[in-house]
């Protein structure tokens, strides 16, 4: 176990990015994943521990042009209770309502949930079907630069993302949904919360004349990262949402996921759940 040699608690983004640029930094936000994972030996501390909780401007939800911008340090509780989130992307609030416990929600942040990059991360699937982008800041040459990347492309493996070592995730941006937009989230579990997803499903699109367009389907806990389900989307895109379309989409969903056996479920059962619950969610969309 590496010992922490330096603790930093920057107040500004500029300062934080400067520390990050020096390298070998572990970033601490809510700590709800970092602390148990370091304790269990799955993550090793780097020599510098940087607590970003005091960095100004990284928290809160605002309307920014045609997007909703959620600061990385916004806690899950704050996302859950936010009126803008409720108004424009209620599916994200719904996911937060299935997220761990009140204590964890009060400490854990949306940026942390994204960067922990768990295939079962609760906010990731709804964010992906909402076409969310992550905003990454860095200070490579003494001045701050920012780039954006679709969240669907951000994850590379369990606990791994395309974030460069010198970058800090500052916000997640969600384009404001078009008229007729529908979005659904399902997390499998026997408990209302406090459960790690066995599978999760997000479905979104614009419903017009009984058919979905701009269809987005994503699954959690069936692959090393949360994944977009392109074949399921294709089975739905532009088609009348009737029983045969729904059945075809549910079959496509079962066929395109490739989950594993673990202590929570077998791969076979995960595929069955993906099929059955995709079908149930689409039935509900069709009936709404």
């Amino acid at each position, binding site marked *: 176990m590496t010992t922490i040699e330096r603790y930093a608690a920057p107040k500004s983004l500029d300062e934080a990015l400067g520390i990050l640029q020096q390298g070998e930094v572990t970033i601490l936000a809510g700590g709800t994943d970092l602390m148990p994972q370091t304790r269990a030996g799955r993550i090793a501390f780097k020599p510098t521990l940087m607590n970003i909780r005091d960095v100004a401007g990284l928290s809160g939800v605002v309307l920014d042009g045609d997007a909703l911008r959620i600061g990385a340090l916004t806690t899950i509780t704050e996302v859950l209770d936010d009126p803008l989130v409720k108004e424009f992307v209620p599916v994200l609030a719904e996911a937060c309502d299935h997220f761990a416990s009140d204590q964890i929600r009060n400490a854990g942040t949306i940026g942390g949930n994204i960067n922990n990059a768990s295939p079962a991360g609760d906010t990731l699937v709804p964010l992906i079907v909402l076409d969310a982008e992550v905003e990454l800041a860095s200070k490579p040459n003494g001045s701050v630069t920012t780039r954006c990347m679709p969240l669907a492309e951000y994850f590379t493996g369990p606990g791994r993302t395309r974030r460069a070592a010198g970058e800090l995730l500052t916000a997640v941006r969600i384009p404001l949904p078009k008229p007729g937009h529908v979005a659904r989230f399902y997390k*499998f579990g*026997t*408990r*209302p*919360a*406090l*459960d*790690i997803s066995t599978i999760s499903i997000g479905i979104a699109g614009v419903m017009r004349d009984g058919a979905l367009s701009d269809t987005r389907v994503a699954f959690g806990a069936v692959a090393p990262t949360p994944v977009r389900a392109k074949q399921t989307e294709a089975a739905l895109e532009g088609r009348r949402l009737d029983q045969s379309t729904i059945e075809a989409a549910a079959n496509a969903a079962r066929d395109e996921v490739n989950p594993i056996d673990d*202590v*929570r*479920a*077998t791969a076979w*059962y995960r595929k*069955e*759940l993906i099929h*059955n*619950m995709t079908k*149930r969610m689409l039935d509900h969309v069709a009936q709404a």
Partner: protein
Amino acid sequence: MNAAEKPVIVADSLIGQRIQKKDAPEKAAGKTRYIQDMVVPGMLHAKILRSARVHARILSIDTSAAKALPGVHVVITAADVPDQQPIGVARDHLPLKGERVRSLRDEIAAVAADSEEIAEAALRLIRVEYEDLPIVAGPEDAIKPGAPLIHPAPLDAEGRPKTLPPKTPVAFAGKADNVAMRFDYTHGDLAAAEAESDVVVEDTFQLHYVTHCCMGVSGVIAEFDASGNLLMYSNTQVPFLHKREFAEYLDIDPARVRIIQPPIGGGFGSKLDIYPFEVICIFLARAAKRPVKMVFTREEEFLASPTRQPVLLTLRSGCRKDGTLTFRQVHTLHDNGAYTSWGATTPFVMMQTFSSLYRVPACDYHTTVVYTNNPYAGSFRGYGNLQATFAIEQHMDMLAEKIGMDPLDFRLKNAQDAGEVTGQGMTFKSCGFKECLTTAAERSDYRRKHADNIANRNARGPVKRGIGIASMLHVGGGAKIYPSDGCGTILKLDDFANVTLITGASEIGQGSETVLSQLVCEELGLPISAVTVVNNDTAITPWDVGVHASRTTFIAGNSAIGAARMAKAKILAAAARKHDCDEASLDLRGGFVVKADSGEAVVELARLMRSLHFSDKAELVMTTFYYEPPSVHQDKGFKGDVSAAYAWATQVVEVEVDTDTGIVKMTKVTGTHDVGRVLNRLGLEGQIEGGVVMGQGYALTENLIVENGVTRNPNFRDYKLVTAPEIPEMDISFVESMDGEGPRGAKGVGEAPSICIAAAAANAIYNATGVRIFGLPFTPEAVYRALRGVTSKPHWQAWKPE
């Protein structure tokens, strides 16, 4: 006081009232000081190094680097304690393992250091070399011919079996096979009963691993004084038995062992045995000459505290067309784990359910308990009865269906009545079984819902509703397992008529302090607040066999009543002398001595107490009482009236089964318990609600996953306790059968509420879906597989010795 001022005290009773638990305010406020909170001046912190292998020979242990770490005081291995004695009911378990590890929980070394962090760092410096041995992963493997032996006999230098004196414990002498224990019981003529049967069913049931999940993890503090007397702060449920056993292990006089129990954060049977960590902590304290504290981590609690025993159970049951049961034949295979604790002895309770829950003319019961390389099983609330009831109550439904009889009528036809003596010799002096059945069925509308659900099985929609019924019989008046099943009480009244109740009975959260205070106050006409309970120090409290077998209210209650009645007699006699009246005309009410007929106050009790004390014939009111129940030990064939009373209950479980996911939602539990008499209604309801939730966890969510000897889910993330929103609606009612021997008519109830839930849930799932599931737990995937017909039915060829 002149005559005009004398108040009249109306007779009032505490029995059946809702009384807040005495320890509730402290616990709710977070002020209770558990062993985790305790700091003894000068104490060291200890940690145990456990095996990294499931089954292996230990080739070498190198502790030199750990010993050299600053802040480390003592490092011990088996080599440092050549005097260690085997623990456990079969004496097959050495606390520190020197030559061989038999499971992943096995203790190899222990460290006492200035802090937990240093002790943990020291563990990482200990090097152990292993040579792997073949793993016995399950009980069926353990009894295969040529199976690797878990406790092989030691060999001498020439490779021949060592000659050892007779009665050498298994830990030293080994065992020629993997059979840890066997139980065989029979009554009636099985062949004749089977020949008379119109219907016979046979099925194998598979029961899984669960563990207690006490919120307070295991912990102990051990210290020796300058004279070598041992003081332990311990969470044990059986302090007096442990005092004697620890003395034996340390080869010292039991008088030199004192056990103090800080408030216990949950027991549920897990603290009935002595475990290696306790003995190891004593060894460390002895070596360090300092107090040593050892507290488990949650992960360690999952890995190294006992489990409920997994069981493979094959049951054959028969009945006649008219609904009369004819026989039961049972073969079970118990996974003991690597060592023997109380889990091995659960057949004592299991066979009672098979032989005596219903009237059955013939019963043939066989258990084989085998060693494996798995975690070892201990005692757990219900003690085998959850497993037995799971099988028997499913068969009751199956037999009823085969003969076309209503499942409730079938049960009522075979249910026991008061006055019956069963084939096993249990005598039911009070028995509210039939009233439990009819009350629970009526309150839940069982018959109508049962029929409706069957009719609706093929209705549209993925969610099916089901209702299921199950009943239980359990000891309710102690259990005569040890030479005595008694409990002592010392009671004193001070100058202000406050009572100190000194009882041997331990409080483990079950509410014994409150109910015992209530029984004393009922005798002495005092409010609950007048009683202080002292119950946690073997140097002060009188003997008690311990908290087990749902015995405390019954046994300690009768003991407390005995002491209180003696005090009352003494008080009334003194009052009669002083006030020149007949003591038979007096009573105690509301803190006064009163005239029994009119309630007119004669003298305030506190004033009377002072006048007795501060007089020329100074006298204090202090009494002692020891209660021993009129039960008997079983004979060698397991027959005998082992408890002074028996408790009954029926529980009806309602479920919704989502056939798309396999999720079973428990929506309602209707429970009717024959408790003899309701003493503390609030405490009783709490006890039953908690037990129902424990039963719900056993049925639906809890599953300690052990694969090839490795526990896969030692954490609350993947070992799923029921959380608050999942708890079903409950309708709890009581049958008061007024047991003649019980304290104010009461019987034990502690274990009862968790026993029937899994069995009733199984019947409810069948009612909902038409699919019967023979293995637990009913996790979503298990249920989904069963609904899709892709589960293989548990199968086991009953094993009989050559």
